[in-house]
């Protein structure tokens, strides 16, 4: 999820596609298109599933969609998403401005610390929140032992979910605002000043309007994040679509209902994606054509630095320090109490094997998609790429349900087997692999491949001896990103895992569901470490 920015890079790159060079001969093309077609088919599965559901709907499904309960779920989901994106903007705007435009002490450090909550998977964040403030959590135990207070106001529901999700997702807005602030032509603000506007009015009339596309983009990413999120809302017991769908499926065994709700959720996601594309186009429209970039002079905060520092420290404490402290606390308690570590190793092994298989699958399937997109640009290859990107935005729970539907109806022996779980991961994360492969491919000039052809190599030899070795860094990045994202995945894993196949994510989730906080600490730590690695990869790539 922290990889959205990565995907976007690829979407932007798509605009600068090189002119198509001479087409490869038929047999190579055919095998590439074959694999690409298979990828497309896999990605189309969930969409097909929803269409089948909707088309074959008896009166019941439509009634399900339009019942008042759906409407209230919609209301709950949207109000959570909007609250989280608004609260994130309120946190991110001052943070981004202070760290880019002022002489705030340790500005860069505050910014880096401010983005770190992105590495915490939502269910881990929610777990740490419950484990610190919830019933039987740290605060409650402390108060109970000190003051005998045994009853605390409940943190579950809207407030808890909004709090956790805001602290986990505001970095999206922070990142996009920072990029916008750094990319803005400083002459715009100077022009406003020279036309008689003071600093405050310049901010409102010039800076903020320039930031509007970035704010919208960050907010949209956050809304998508909240719509897809399953872990945090489930632990916080707040009924958004993903949780209701899961409850319908797992508790009520009502698949028709679950599918109907999925359809609503997917329509919501897809319309947001369309809005996002449109906004992106407009943002480009707005960008000024400044050629000479300079950094604007930093604003001196003076005594304002103290409230500014207080604000930054507050955000970092809430989003990072408290979760880290809580994690360490329960880890230590678990170790002291002699918690069994053995199951952690087993589930780590399961997580590793499923994620490695998924990474390998996306690597193999991704190459044709990326290659066709870069070297054979056209309607078909573009459609292929768009499909993989769309699948990335689909909630994992929907893809899981689609695969349950297909296996139970057409391939019962495959139901709840490792291959299907890997297939789900592949569909979900294919675009991460193709994006990094694509970026790498764009850096290989077609002339090199043509030179190899003119020296007597066949197209297939060129691919294996020239192209693939050259894009190896991109292949590795894609592999790594998919692997680490798959490690964290929760909803599809819950639904599709073979019986008795526990992964780290599932282990955290079930331990927290029963308030065994110490048991959850160790797998949660491994997951945070796993999520930090793609973040580090991204940061290193950006600053290379």
């Amino acid at each position: 999820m922290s990889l959205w920015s990565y995907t976007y890079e690829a979407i932007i790159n798509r605009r600068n596609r090189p002119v198509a060079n001479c087409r490869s001969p038929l047999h190579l093309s055919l095998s590439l298109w074959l694999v690409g077609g298979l990828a497309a088919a896999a990605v189309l599965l969930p969409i097909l599933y929803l269409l089948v559901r909707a088309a074959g709907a008896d009166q019941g499904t439509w009634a399900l969609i339009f019942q008042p309960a759906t409407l209230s779920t919609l209301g709950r989901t949207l109000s959570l998403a909007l609250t989280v994106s608004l609260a994130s903007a309120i946190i991110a705007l001052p943070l981004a401005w202070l760290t880019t435009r002022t002489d705030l002490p340790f500005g860069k450090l505050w910014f880096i610390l401010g983005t770190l909550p992105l590495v915490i998977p939502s269910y881990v964040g929610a777990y740490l929140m419950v484990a610190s403030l919830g019933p039987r959590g740290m605060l409650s135990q402390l108060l109970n032992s000190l003051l005998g207070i045994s009853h605390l106001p409940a943190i579950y529901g809207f407030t808890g979910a909004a709090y956790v999700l805001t602290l986990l997702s505001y970095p999206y807005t922070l990142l996009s605002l920072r990029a916008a602030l750094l990319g803005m032509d400083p002459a715009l603000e100077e022009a406003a000043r020279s036309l008689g506007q003071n600093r405050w009015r310049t901010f409102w009339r010039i800076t903020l309007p320039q930031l509007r596309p970035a704010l919208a983009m960050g907010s949209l990413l956050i809304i998508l994040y909240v719509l897809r999120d399953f872990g945090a809302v489930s632990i916080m017991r707040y009924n958004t679509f993903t949780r209701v769908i899961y409850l319908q499926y797992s508790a009520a065994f009502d698949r028709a209902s679950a599918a109907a709700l999925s359809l609503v959720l997917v329509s919501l996601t897809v319309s947001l994606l369309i809005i996002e594309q449109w906004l992106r186009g407009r943002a480009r429209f707005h960008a000024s054509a400044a050629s000479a970039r300079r950094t604007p002079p930093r604003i001196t905060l003076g005594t304002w630095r103290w409230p500014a520092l207080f604000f930054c420290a507050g955000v970092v404490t809430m989003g990072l320090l408290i979760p880290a402290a809580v994690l360490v606390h329960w880890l230590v308690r678990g170790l002291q109490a002699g918690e069994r570590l053995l199951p952690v190793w087993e589930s780590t092994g399961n997580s590793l094997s499923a994620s490695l298989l998924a990474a390998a699958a996306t690597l193999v399937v991704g190459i044709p998609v990326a290659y066709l997109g870069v070297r054979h640009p056209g309607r078909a290859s573009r459609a292929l790429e768009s499909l993989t990107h769309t699948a990335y935005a689909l909630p994992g729970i929907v893809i899981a349900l689609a695969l349950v539907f297909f296996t139970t109806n057409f391939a019962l022996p495959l139901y709840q087997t490792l291959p299907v779980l890997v297939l789900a991961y592949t569909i979900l994360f294919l675009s991460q692999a193709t994006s990094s492969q694509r970026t790498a491919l764009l850096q290989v000039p077609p002339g090199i491949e043509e030179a190899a052809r003119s020296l007597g190599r066949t197209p297939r030899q060129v691919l294996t001896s020239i192209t693939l070795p050259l894009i190896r860094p991109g292949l590795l990045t894609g592999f790594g990103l998919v692997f680490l994202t798959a490690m964290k995945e929760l909803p599809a894993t819950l639904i599709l895992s073979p019986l008795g196949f526990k992964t780290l994510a599932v282990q955290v989730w079930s331990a927290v569901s029963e308030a065994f906080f110490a048991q959850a600490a160790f797998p949660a730590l491994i997951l945070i470490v796993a999520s930090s690695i793609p973040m580090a990869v991204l940061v290193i790539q950006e600053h290379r």
Partner: protein
Amino acid sequence: MNYRQSALECVQLSKTFAEVQALRSFNLQVQQGEILSLIGPSGCGKTTLLRLIAGFDCPQAGEIRLQGKIVVSDANFVPPEKRGVGMVFQDYALFPHLNIGANIAFGLDRLSKEQRTARSAEMLDMVGLAGYEKRLPHELSGGERQRVALARALAPAPVVLLMDEPFSNLDADRRLQMRSEVRHILKRTGITCVFVTHDQEEALFMGDRLAVLNQGQLEQVGTPEQVFQEPSSQFVAEFMGQTDFVPGIITPAGIATEIGLLNQPVSLPPGSLVEVAVRADDVIFQLDPTGNAQVEERLYRGATSLYTLRLPSGRIVHSLQAHTHQVSPGSRVQVLAEPGHALAHFSTQNQSAPEARAVPL
């Protein structure tokens, strides 16, 4: 011209950026209604000076006065919005989210809505873009953006207008046309203007006076004719136009050089060694098998040809000749200086002679 009062005065300005001294004890006066071209190589401090005048940066020492009023000194700092200094930016800096009318009206807060609309229409009319109010900046061409930027800066009737290489983003044809249009508009409004450029031709054309900057210091200020014909230093002579240097020695009769005796007034005692600044139009030559120079190269330019000539000392001089005068490279020729005016010359006493060089054209 009849100047009343200094519109802009810089006194002993100094500004250092991280060890680089951008301006050192810099003094400058600009008269009311005057266009001053500020020219110098990149990094000479000209953009820094503009930013200090506008108030985007603060000098470490010195004082700036606008119409006699101190806007920055050790004790004072007037923020940019209170200075009444208009600025045209290199990239125009039009507000991309506002239409052209709103861009121009941006600095007119004090006026009523009707007055703002009227003023912005008047300004658009002045720059030849009447009726463009509803367009957005990205819909305009480079030249049109340039005019809007000028109209926006002039709309609030600033005390001084600053222009930072305003034509550098236009292509060559457009640049010539915009130059004369802008000069015309500036003269019509009677505004005081400081115009920064690194293009000497542009500086000569735009400025009532020229100020040549080098390494944060003023090398020379004067009318375009003075600066071009009587450069006060070797740097100015070199910077202001394809200039070659020929060694010479002062004699009672003038300056003796390998391209002839220059019979002209001199400022140094006889016997002094000098470098004489020679431009391509100061030099003539004719075919002569026993001549003192060799034709190295001939650049055909249509109406004229530019010859590169190598002198016995190894020095290079250039000569501009009508296209009727054709001599092939390799020929021996006799070179003579025939400037028709006194040539600038600089003492080389206590310093090594500059190396022979071909001035890039």
